C-alpha cells in the first residue's frame, strides 16, 4: 500500500519515575515490566512502534493499567515521551515548540475523554466553541460552527444547557462535538463510552459509526472492551504491560491470535460475527459458476443459513459488483460458525 502514515510511532518509551531518561539509557529493550518495576520505575509504554494511516480507525485495546491511555497521551503529546520518536504528518512532535504544539492541536487534533472533561461553568454551546475561542475566532463564526456540530451529534435545542443538566450520554455527545469543532484530521478517543451504561453505550457506538461514515477521520480509539473493539475497528492493537501484543485486523486477531494473552480474549467471542467471508476466501482454481455466490463483505454469521443448506464443498464468493472473486471451503466456514 502506498498510503503514508498520518501518525508514525517508532520505539516509543514512556517511563514514569524519578529520573526516567537516565534510567532508560541504562536498560536494554528486553527488560521486563516487572524488572523495571523492581527498580522503582513504571513502564507506561514499552518500545511501541505503530503506524496509523489516513482515514483508518485504529482501536487500542487493553485492560486497565496496560498503558493504552498513556500511549494515546504520548501520541497527542499530553505526555512527553522518554524515548523513541513520534511523527505526525512527517513532523517530529517532540521537537515542536510550545507555540507550534498549540498550533498543531488548534488545527489538526481533537480528543474525547472518558469522563468527558467538560468545563462545568460553560454551556453546551460555550463548551463546543471553546477550542474555536482559544484560537481566536470571532464570536459569530464560532457560534455558527458550534451550532453546526451540536446539530451533527444530535443535541439541537440543548445549546444553552450546562453539563450537569445533561445525562452521561448527552455529556459525551458534547465532548464529541467539542473535539470535532475545529474539524481535526486526527481524532483521539480515550474510552469515550466506558462511563456510560450498556444500552447507551451501544447507541453511542452506532452514532459514532454514523459520524465516522460521514467524516472519514483518522482515528485512534481506546477501549478496554473487546467487543467494542471488534465492532468498530479497522485494525486492533492489543496492549499488555505497556507493549503491543498484536496489531492486526479483527478477522486476523480472532482467527490467528498471536499470543496466549490475545487468545484468551478471543475465546468467548462468537467468531462468525466478526469474520468476513473474504477473510477465509481462497482463489478459485478454475472458472466456476457464480451460481448462489456469497458476498465477500458479509459476516459469516449472516450467511450461516446458506452455508448450512448449500452442500457444495466450495462455495463461490463475489464482490459488491457481483463479480466472482474467489471461493470458500464450506467445512472451514461451518467450523467457524459452530465455534470449533
Amino acid at each position: 500500500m502506498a498510503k503514508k502514515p498520518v501518525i508514525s510511532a517508532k520505539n516509543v518509551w514512556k517511563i514514569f519515575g524519578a529520573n526516567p531518561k537516565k534510567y532508560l539509557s541504562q536498560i536494554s529493550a528486553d527488560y521486563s515490566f516487572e524488572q523495571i518495576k523492581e527498580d522503582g520505575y513504571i513502564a507506561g509504554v514499552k518500545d511501541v512502534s505503530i503506524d496509523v494511516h489516513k482515514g483508518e480507525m485504529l482501536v487500542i485495546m487493553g485492560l486497565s493499567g496496560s498503558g493504552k491511555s498513556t500511549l494515546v497521551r504520548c501520541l497527542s503529546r499530553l505526555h512527553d515521551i522518554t524515548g523513541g520518536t513520534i511523527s505526525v504528518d512527517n513532523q517530529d512532535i517532540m521537537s515542536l515548540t510550545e507555540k507550534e504544539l498549540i498550533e498543531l492541536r488548534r488545527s489538526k487534533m481533537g480528543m474525547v475523554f472518558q469522563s468527558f472533561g467538560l468545563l462545568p461553568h460553560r454551556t453546551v454551546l460555550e463548551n463546543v466553541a471553546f477550542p474555536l475561542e482559544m484560537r481566536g475566532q470571532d464570536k459569530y463564526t464560532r457560534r455558527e460552527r458550534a451550532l453546526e456540530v451540536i446539530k451533527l451529534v444530535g443535541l439541537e435545542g440543548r445549546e444553552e444547557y450546562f453539563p450537569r443538566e445533561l445525562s452521561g450520554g448527552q455529556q459525551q455527545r458534547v465532548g464529541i462535538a467539542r473535539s470535532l469543532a475545529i474539524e481535526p484530521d486526527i481524532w483521539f478517543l480515550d474510552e469515550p463510552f466506558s462511563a456510560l451504561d450498556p444500552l447507551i453505550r451501544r447507541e453511542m457506538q452506532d452514532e459514532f459509526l454514523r459520524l465516522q461514515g460521514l467524516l472519514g477521520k483518522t482515528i485512534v480509539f481506546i477501549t478496554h472492551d473487546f467487543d467494542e473493539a471488534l465492532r468498530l475497528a479497522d485494525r486492533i492493537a492489543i496492549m499488555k504491560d505497556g507493549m503491543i501484543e498484536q496489531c492486526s485486523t479483527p478477522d486476523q486477531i480472532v482467527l490467528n491470535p498471536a499470543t496466549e494473552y490475545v487468545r484468551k480474549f478471543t475465546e468467548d467471542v462468537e467468531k462468525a460475527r466478526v469474520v468476513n467471508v473474504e477473510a477465509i476466501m481462497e482463489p478459485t482454481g478454475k472458472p466456476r459458476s457464480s451460481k448462489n455466490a456469497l458476498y465477500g463483505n458479509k459476516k459469516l454469521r449472516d450467511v450461516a443459513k446458506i452455508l448450512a443448506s448449500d452442500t457444495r464443498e466450495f462455495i463461490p464468493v463475489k464482490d459488491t459488483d457481483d463479480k466472482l472473486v474467489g471461493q470458500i471451503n464450506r467445512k472451514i466456514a461451518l467450523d467457524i460458525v459452530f465455534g470449533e
Partner: protein
Amino acid sequence: MKKLNQNGMDLKAIDTNTGIASLFLLVALAFLLSRGILPAWLIRIPEALVPPLAVWLDLIFNFIKDDLHLIDLTRAISGGLEVLLDITANLLYGRNRWPKLGPIPWAAVCASFVVLAYYLGGVRLALLALVTFVWTALIGQWKIAMQTMSVLTLAAPFAVLIGLGLGITAWKFRTFDKSIRPILSVLQTLPFFTYLLPAVIFFKVGPTAGAVATIMFAVPPMILMTTLGLRKVSTEIVEAGHMSGCTRWQMLRRVYIPAARTEILVGVNQVIMLCLAMVVLTAFIGMPGLGAKLLAMMGSFKIGRSFEIGITIVLFAIMLDRMSKAWVMKQPVHFDRGTQWWQRHKYFLLSLLAFVFFLLLSQLIPILAEVTRKQSFSQGKEIDKIIKGFLAIDSIKNTTEWLRWFLNVKVLIPFRNSLLWIPTPAFILIIMGLGWYLAGKKEALIAGLFFTIVAITGWWDRSVITLYTVISAVVLATFIGIPLGIVAARSTKWSSRILLACDTAQTFPSFIYLIPAIMLFGVNDVAVVFSILIFAAVPLTRYTIEGLRGVPPEMVEAADMSGATRFQKLLTVQLPLALPTMGVGFNQAINFAFFMVIIAAFIGTQDLGQELQRTLAGTELGKNFVLGMNVSLMALSFDFIITKWTETRKQALGLG
C-alpha cells in the same frame, strides 16, 4: 497502651516510645519531689540570663523601618488605602470626604441586599437579610455598623485578590509553596494583637491600620483554598484544555480558575468571616465601629446595649456567612434560547430598581434615610434592668455565686498555683514526655524546643498563666461538649440541628463570647474561663458528633448483633473509633482557646494577653512580637502533637 497493641501497631516502636516518655516523666517527678532543695536557677531562669530579645527585635524593626525606609513605602500604601477607605466611608456612613454623596439611605442598601439574598438563596435568605438590616437600622446602630462594613467591603476583596495571587504562585512553584507553608501555619496561630501593633506602626492609627491588619489576618486561608482548588481540577479537564490548544494564560484564566470555582469561593467565604472577626477586634487600635462600641459598652458594664450590639454583630455574621455559602452552592442554570436581555439579568435590574426606588422614597420619608437616636427602638436600659433583675433572683444569684466561688477557690486558683509551682525544667520535661507518648520523637523535641524558647524569653510565669487558662477552659469544655455531642449523635435529626448550631456559632466573631460571660460572672477570672469554655465547646461538640456519626455502620451493626447494650456499644465500638476525629476537635478547641484567651485579656487577666494589650498603647514592637511568638509557640506545640496523634490513630484504625 493496651488499646494500641490490640490495633496492631508496631509494638516495638510503641514500647520504646512509652519507655522514653516515662523516663522524661520520671526525671520531671524527681525535680518535683526535690523542689525544696533545688537551687533557684533550676526553678526559674534567672533574670540575668534572659536575653533582651525585645530590645534586639526593636533594633531590627527600627532598622527595617527607618534605615531601609520601609516606613515610607507603607505610608505611601496607606495613603492610597486611605483614599479608598474615605470613599466607602463617605458612601456608607456619610463621612465628610470625597465623593460627598453619602450616606446612602439604609432602606436603599437594605432593599438591594434583600434582592441579592433572594437571588442567592431564596426567600429564607432574603428574610434573614431583611431582618438584619431592619434590626440594625431600627436599633439605632446603622452608622456604627456601616463604619465596620466600610472597612470590610474594602478589606475582603483585597484579601481575596492577594490570596488568589499568592495561591496561584504557590500552586505554580513548589519551592514557593514549601517556603510559605510554615509561615502560614505560624500566621494562623499568631494572636491577633500581634497583627495589630505592626499595622499601627506602619500604617497609622484608625481605619487604615485596621484594614491592613484585617487583610493580613484573612489572607492565609485564601491562599490555602486557592492552591487546594487548583490542585483538585480533574486531569481530564486540564487535558481537554491542552487539546483545545490553550496557551498558558488561557489555561489559567479559562480552565483552571473556573474549574476550581467551588474551593475558591469557599476561600472567599472564609475571608469574609475572618475579616468580620478581625474588623470587630480592630476596636483595640481605635477603629470606630461595632467593635469599638461593644468594647466601650462592656467597659462601662452596660450589659443591655452590649447585648444589642452583640445581636447586630451575630446577625451580620450569619447573614454574610449564609450569603457567601449560598454563592458557593449557586450553580449556573441555563436560559432558554431567545430569552430577553432583561430576563437574563432580572435580579440585577431588580436590585438596581429597588435601590433607586428607596433612594427616592427616602427623600420623602426621612426615617427611611436615617433612624435618629430618638426614633430608635434601643431598649438598652430596659434590658439592663431585666438582666440585672434576672441575675438578682435568689436561686440564680446563689448558683452563679456558688459556681464562681467553687471554680475560683476549689479549681482554678489551686490549679494555677500548682502549675506555677512546677520548676521550669520539670514543666518542659512533662510536656516532652506527653508529646513523646502521644506523638513521637520529632513532635516531643519540637515541643521541648518551643517551650524552652518561651522560658528563655523571660515571660514564663505569664505564659504558664495563659496555659493554665487555656487548659482549664478546654477541660471544662470537654465536660459540656463531649456529652452534648454523644447525646446529639444518637439521632439524625438532633445531629443536624446541633451541627447547624455549631456552624452558626463558629461564624460569630470571638468577641461576642465575652458578653454572656461578663453578664453572668462580672469581670474576673471565672468570666474569662467561661467565655473560652463556650467558645471551645463548639468544636468539641461538633467533632464528637461527626466522629460518632462517621463510625462505619457495619461496625455498629456487628456490635448490635453481638448483643451489646447501648452503653457497651458506645464504650467499646463507637468512642474508640470516633476518637481520632474527636482529637481534631480537641486540637481546634485548644487553638480557639489560645485565640480567645488573648481577647479575654480585655476583662483583666494576668497572662500574656494583658501584656500584649499594654504594648498596643505604646510602640513596643519588639515586646509585642516576643509575646505573640510565645503564644504562637505554645499553640503550635499542641497542634503538632495532637495532629500527629490523630493521624497515627486514624491509620491504626484503618480509617484512612
